[in-house]
Structures are given as structure tokens and as C-alpha cells.
């Protein structure tokens, strides 16, 4: 079984400032890692994912996350946030062995609040 811990339930930042949303996971097997974003009153959308290869993965809207196996972390960063980044962000994990059939395990979410 795996678990995900998102260390901050809320992160307020000023517009154009950098931000880091923290995510740690635990698993006895190798995993795939995901960040999803949920805008108000909407479903979840995939932001980025780590499957294998380069430990730094990027999204099309300027977010990046780095897989750190030794620290079992997958923190999400953006160098300069915009008001439109206000949303709930979820870190999630899936283990290799099931091929993803038994779904994702999610963290509790981090609410990113951008202040003008």
C-alpha cells in the first residue's frame, strides 16, 4: 500500500512570486507520480507526471516537479505565479505492479492562493 502526504493545506503567495508545493510519498514498490489541478467547481486535470527517466518533469504552463527517490518526494514548483494559478493541487501515486488498474492514491490537497 502507498500513501501521500502534502505538507501544507494552504499556501498563500503574492502574484509573480515563486512557489513550492510539497509532496512526500511512501511505498514498498516503484511508483508513478502525478500532480493534478482542480479549479473551482471543476474536475481534476492532469498537470504533470513522472513515470521514468529524467527526474525533472515540466508542464505546459510553467510548473515543474522533481522526483527525489532518496527523499521520497515530488515537490511542485513554479518560478512566477499568476492569479489564474489559484486552485487546489493534488499529488497522487500509483504503483507499477497493478499497471494502474487499482487507481491513484491522493494526498489531501494544497490550496494555492495568489494574492495581487
Amino acid at each position, binding site marked *: 500500500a502507498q500513501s501521500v502526504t*502534502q505538507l501544507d*493545506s494552504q499556501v498563500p503567495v503574492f502574484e509573480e512570486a515563486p512557489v513550492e508545493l510539497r509532496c512526500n510519498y511512501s511505498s514498498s514498490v516503484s511508483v*508513478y507520480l*502525478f500532480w493534478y489541478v482542480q479549479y473551482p467547481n*471543476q*474536475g*481534476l*486535470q*492532469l498537470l504533470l*507526471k513522472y*513515470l521514468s527517466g529524467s527526474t525533472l518533469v515540466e508542464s505546459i504552463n510553467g510548473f515543474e516537479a522533481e522526483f527525489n527517490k532518496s527523499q521520497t518526494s515530488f515537490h511542485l514548483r513554479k518560478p512566477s505565479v499568476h492569479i489564474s494559478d489559484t486552485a487546489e493541487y*493534488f499529488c497522487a501515486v*500509483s504503483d507499477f505492479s497493478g*499497471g*494502474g*488498474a*487499482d*487507481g*491513484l*492514491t*491522493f*494526498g*489531501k*490537497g494544497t490550496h494555492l492562493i495568489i494574492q495581487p
Partner: protein
Amino acid sequence: NAGVTQTPKFRILKIGQSMTLQCTQDMNHNYMYWYRQDPGMGLKLIYYSVGAGITDKGEVPNGYNVSRSTTEDFPLRLELAAPSQTSVYFCASSSPSNTGELFFGEGSRLTVL
């Protein structure tokens, strides 16, 4: 492309009533899931299915039932609604080639009074 479609979007139930949340996907995905989302708690898996005729319990299955008679549809049934089932419900789908990535519907907000 419709993707994953959930109905209804909103519903208010009285304690003890029953209802079915509908979910359909048009991506020919083998895997389908029901999650519930509660404030500050993230998403919890209720039931999932790896193909037509096959369903399995997730982390929080009590009070719910599912069926999977076709690849496209995965309805979630609440038999005796309780206030603890007030939540936002999300249906999702995936396939082996997606390596774990889930595709979500827009959610169904259920209130039990």
C-alpha cells in the same frame, strides 16, 4: 470528445432515499473509478472496475454499490442515503496504456439532509 460524463451535477436527497449517479465514458477505457472528495480530505476511492462484469471495493465502499454491464457505463448506487454521504463524487477512467493517469468527470455534488 465528451470524455467522462457524470449526471446529475447536483442533487439533494433526504435521509433514507436512494439514488444512482451515472457515469459514462467514450474513450473505450477498460478501467473506471468512483472517488468521493470531502473538504481537506483529498479523494478517497469508493469502487473501481477493470472491465465489464468486474468490480472491486476501494477504501470507502460502505453504503454504496456499483455495476459494470458495459465498457462505457459505471453507475454508483446509494441505497439508504445518510448525511455522511454528503460529498462531491468524481468518476474517472483509464486504460493500461495510460500508465496510471486518470481522466475525470466534472463531479456530482450530493447533499443528504
